[in-house]
């Protein structure tokens, strides 16, 4: 579903991601974990085309992202951002924010589908007419998820989806995401610094450090502590 080969991303003179490769299969939930600055969010942004300066190859659904148009890419993969306070336009009511991707891509009946999406993420239809500042952090993140699902993507990239939220809300959002993955048959790539979140959500995970991939583990390997690298052990011990 997603195939990343020898990805290197530069920010000017510094290297944010160095020669990272991984692949994610259909329906899988893949985790990227590591301390802040290790390049995990950069990988997501690069997959979505938000970083211009990179080399290597990224294939989504078998298609090279470099030769795929943005609108085409938009219908295959969408992203949910870390900070739900910054990812919703402050002047748009929730309904407009969710319907906008559908309007841009000229999908039929955006109004009706907005209500369906709100229902899907567990918010009542009246929320369409609220402004973001009237919502709590968890509700905003739900709206951001609904907006990402508006174009019916098969892949959802989640950049620290719960780190800006209260602990009590985190579990709710994670459960919602798991439920959506089952119901809509989605493929997830989740970035987090929190191993607990990753081990709860992901089938496989990749540990990153200083812009490089340390190792890739399955959930079973993580549970049985079948770990090759000492850095990964330190990370687990710290969490």
């Amino acid at each position, binding site marked *: 579903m997603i195939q990343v080969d020898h990805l290197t991303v530069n920010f000017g003179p510094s290297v944010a991601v160095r020669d990272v490769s991984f692949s994610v299969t259909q329906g899988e939930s893949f985790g990227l974990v590591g301390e802040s600055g290790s390049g995990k969010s950069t990988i997501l942004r690069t997959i*979505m*085309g*938000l970083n211009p300066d990179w080399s290597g190859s990224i294939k989504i659904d078998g298609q090279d992202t470099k030769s795929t148009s*943005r*609108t085409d*890419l*938009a219908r295959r993969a*969408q*992203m949910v*951002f*870390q*900070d739900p*306070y*910054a*990812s*919703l*336009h*402050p*002047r748009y*009511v929730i*309904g407009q*924010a969710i319907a*906008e*991707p559908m309007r*841009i*891509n000229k999908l039929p009946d955006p*109004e009706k589908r907005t*209500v369906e999406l709100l229902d899907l993420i567990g918010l009542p*239809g*009246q929320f*369409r*007419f*609220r*402004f973001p*500042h009237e919502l709590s952090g968890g509700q905003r993140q739900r709206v*951001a998820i609904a*907006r*990402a699902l*508006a*174009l019916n993507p098969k892949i959802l990239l989640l950049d620290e989806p719960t780190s800006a939220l209260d602990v009590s809300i985190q579990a709710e959002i994670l459960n919602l995401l798991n439920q959506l993955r089952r119901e809509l048959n989605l493929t997830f790539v989740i970035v987090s610094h929190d191993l607990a979140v990753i081990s709860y959500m992901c089938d496989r995970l990749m540990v990153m450090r200083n812009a490089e991939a340390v190792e890739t583990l399955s959930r079973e390997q993580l549970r049985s502590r079948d770990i090759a690298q000492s850095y990964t052990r330190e990370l687990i011990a710290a969490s």
Partner: protein
Amino acid sequence: MSVIADPIIDPKRALRAARIAEFKSFARRFARNPLGMVGLIIVIALLVCAALAPILATHDPYLPALSDRLAAPGAEYWFGADELGRDIYSRIIFGSRLTLLIVALVIVTSAPVGLVIGAIAGNYGGWVDRIFMRITDVFLAIPKLLLALAFVAALGPGIVNAALAITLTAWPPYARLARAEALIVRNSDYVNAIRLAGASDFHIIVYHIMPMCLSSVIVRMTFDMAGIILTAAGLGFIGLGAQPPLPEWGAMISTGRKFIFDQWWVATVPGFAIFIVSLGFNLLGDAMRDLLDPHLRQRR
């Protein structure tokens, strides 16, 4: 709450209700600022004067009455009469139309130009930004009144030319302002999110960046109006703005200059009008800034 229709059935009305509620909370916060209210009242008074000038005026502002030359303020001429015996009060009232006309002309032309240039420069960055901003710098480097003077001198005096001349010097600050906002907004997650949804640059600039620049621009606009009135009066004073017999306030001061020691009211009354109106716009601008400026307003 029961008045609001079921939003599922009537989405348009519910959307309007949400917008009205938003506006009401804005109005409530505005009303808490007494100086801002004073400014608003002055500006509304100016608008009323301009709209109802024929009703409010007691005399024909253009009709000379030579027997009443330079009459002192009194029952017949509330603010006195000028050197041709025209009622100064009526001329002030009609002059408010000219003032508003110039302000409106300048704002309508300069703010959108600046906003568009700034938003485009900020959104694209790189060489587009560099070219647009250097052009802006060139205009900013020339003293305002001097450029306006040169422009009017070249095109000939008159209200429209004066407005054009002021516009020429008034748009660069808007471009600067809009660019600064756009630079912040274009990297924000909500713009990224909509970019990922396949939105074009045009869509992003018009529907996402410009609305976010708007509040700064409106604040700046309200402040600018005071400056525009002063510049227009200045041009009128040196004879390059509105031409006689138009009752433009700056031109009125200019003719009153000759009599300032003996018939003080001829120059003082229009001067006072300019002062009050500028003050009103400044107070209004201050209040607007307190409410709208994204750098002062804490995250709600």
